[in-house]
């Protein structure tokens, strides 16, 4: 087994990033127990540290703005990251309260050429989601988690190196309470090696069974039995804003993150989408729903983002947005073979359909047209705009016709010079009137060629085409 553990150390802060600059911190607990669990760099520079209580933080930095953590937001974000992680392995574990996700990569390494390239993909992927990430690699889950606290320690690949690699590390990075660490320090234990030297039953007597069990899992001497995370069959992602967002710009950052998570989920399940609903929630349960339909199966986050962005920029957001919801439950086979993005000959076609989607998103689906022929001798009906229920049914075997066509014939009074004999086209039974038309080629004074008809019933003349 080889585990990559990813930890989002500033998750609480990164989920509640309001617009204004200045020192910010996220707190847990209330009253006297309210303390800092995350803060931004400005606050760190002012001397604010994790674990500091609220009153002393305010003493140190009177400008500090504090927000209560939202455990539900953290939970949604961590679970979304777990779904995203399935693109690298089917073996994923998550611990929401620790802001950690584990991926077993030993069995999928060969798909990713090397551990380094896999590791880079995971890290940059998470950074693109907009999170700070620290990662650790080790044969046990807890050792991988420990290494997220020690970015300078090299990955541990073999079980046999594990103990040696962590021996000299301090106790602070272990998953044991700060209180227990303090007690261990007072008994003179400083490093993991010191702690591992204490007999298990002695530790159990003082700290309970959990501590020796944890150390055994850390070293791989006890099985780490956990429930595996499973990617959901229907994808739902909700993102809540701290305060209502009124501008499109304010929606883009979380929207991009949500779509990137979703793209990772789709890759993990090897699926794609053609329909996607993004709901913007306003006050009083009012909603704005953006429906997206793509011409080809899609799972490219940048493409989906571009389409939704187009849509967003074309609508007026009636009220501040309190939350974004992404819903997808209908999936299709992807049209791109996984891991083959650049060599695929269909790539060009995919780019083209992506371009058409972009045009449709801005101009409306009906503005983007493909022409077809209909097997019908009436000029108005001999052509059509193709759609799902209108297919090309005609042949190119038509008489010479003008390149420009006026679907609404234009009545003319000054007749240009007629050339040649008329072509009679019966039109009576389609207009419901007894109408026959005699079509002529004509030449204007300027030398243009027109396609005219005389309504045999009314004897009026109409222009219907131009030889452009």
């Amino acid at each position: 087994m080889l585990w990559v553990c990813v930890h989002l150390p500033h998750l609480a802060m990164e989920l509640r990033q309001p617009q204004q600059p200045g020192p910010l911190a996220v707190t847990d607990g209330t009253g006297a127990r309210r303390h800092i669990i995350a803060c931004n760099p400005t606050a760190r520079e002012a001397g604010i540290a994790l674990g500091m209580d609220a009153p002393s933080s305010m003493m140190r930095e009177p400008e500090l703005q504090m927000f209560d953590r939202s455990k539900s937001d953290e939970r949604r974000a961590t679970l979304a990251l777990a779904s995203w992680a399935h693109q690298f392995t089917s073996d994923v574990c998550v611990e929401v309260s620790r802001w950690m996700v584990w991926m077993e990569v030993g069995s999928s390494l060969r798909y990713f050429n090397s551990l380094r390239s896999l590791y880079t993909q995971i890290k940059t992927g998470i950074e693109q989601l907009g999170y700070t990430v620290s990662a650790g690699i080790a044969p046990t889950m807890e050792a991988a988690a420990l290494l997220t606290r020690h970015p300078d320690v090299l990955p541990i690949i073999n079980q046999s190196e594990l103990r040696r690699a962590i021996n000299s590390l301090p106790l602070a990075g272990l998953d044991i309470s700060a209180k227990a660490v303090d007690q261990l320090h007072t008994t003179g234990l400083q490093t993991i090696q010191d702690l591992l030297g204490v007999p298990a039953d002695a530790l159990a007597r003082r700290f309970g069974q959990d501590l020796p069990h944890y150390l055994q899992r850390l070293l791989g001497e006890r099985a780490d039995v956990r429930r595996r995370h499973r990617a959901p069959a229907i994808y739902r992602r909700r993102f809540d804003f701290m305060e209502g967002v009124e501008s499109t710009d304010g929606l883009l950052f979380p929207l991009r993150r949500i779509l990137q998570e979703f793209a990772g989920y789709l890759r993990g399940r090897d699926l794609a989408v053609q329909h996607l609903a993004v709901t913007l929630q306003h006050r009083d349960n009012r909603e704005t729903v953006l429906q997206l339909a793509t011409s080809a199966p899609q799972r490219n986050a940048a493409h989906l983002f571009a389409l939704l962005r187009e849509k967003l920029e074309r609508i007026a957001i009636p009220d501040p947005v309190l939350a974004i919801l992404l819903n997808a439950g209908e999936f299709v086979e992807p049209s791109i073979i996984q891991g083959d993005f650049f060599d695929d000959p269909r790539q060009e076609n995919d780019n083209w359909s992506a371009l058409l989607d972009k045009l449709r998103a801005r101009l409306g689906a009906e503005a983007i047209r493909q022409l077809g022929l209909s097997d019908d001798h009436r000029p108005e009906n001999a052509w059509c705009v193709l759609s799902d229920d209108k297919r090309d049914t005609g042949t190119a075997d038509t008489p010479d016709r003008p390149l420009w066509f006026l679907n609404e014939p234009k009545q003319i009074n000054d007749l240009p010079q007629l050339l040649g004999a008329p072509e009679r086209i019966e039109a009576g039974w389609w207009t419901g009137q007894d109408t026959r038309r005699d079509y002529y080629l004509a030449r204007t004074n300027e030398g243009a060629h027109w396609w005219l008809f005389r309504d045999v019933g009314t004897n009026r003349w109409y222009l219907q085409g131009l030889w452009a």
Partner: protein
Amino acid sequence: MTVESLQALLHSSPHVWRGRETARVDARSSGYAALDARLPGGGWPIGALIEIASKTDGCGELRLTLPALKSWCQDGKSVAFIRPPHVPYAPALARNGMTLSSLLWVATDSDKDGRWAAEQLLRDGAAAVLLWSTAQEDRALRRLQLAAETGKACAFLYRSPAALKQSSPAAVRVAVSATHNGSGMSLDLMKVRGGHPGKLVLPLTRPAA
């Protein structure tokens, strides 16, 4: 040394600069030999803006570009008509050898949206775009020129004859009108970058209707 051997010598070396003959221009034959002879590289320049102004609708303005469009279609490339003044009539296009599935028609009332769509298509996949626009600003033309360059596509911009009075970044500017007997189209090549401006008449087959 004979003239022939001198010519051969001149042509054998890429290092010899041959005066009038300017840098090789990537081009697509217009399908009209007399016109190709005046265009740089022997056809419509690729990656360039080409302005076409017709005095009146129905004088051959579309047949001017049709042979090139047809050849792109045959190569499996896409071409787009953006904001054409009338319905591009599918039976006539098909009869003229256009592959309808390679042809995209963008219908929008907004000139701005039309130019936006043209830029996207030029940049990202269409071999040629025919855009009908009344835009006058130099900036709009330059954007089209840039998009054509980026996507190595041909941007045919159909404008009113009045627009030809202004200067333009286009590589080719041509005014089209019908000859009075209707047997051909008169071209006035007002600007041909790297080619030969001037007037010429192209034969047109008379419609058979």
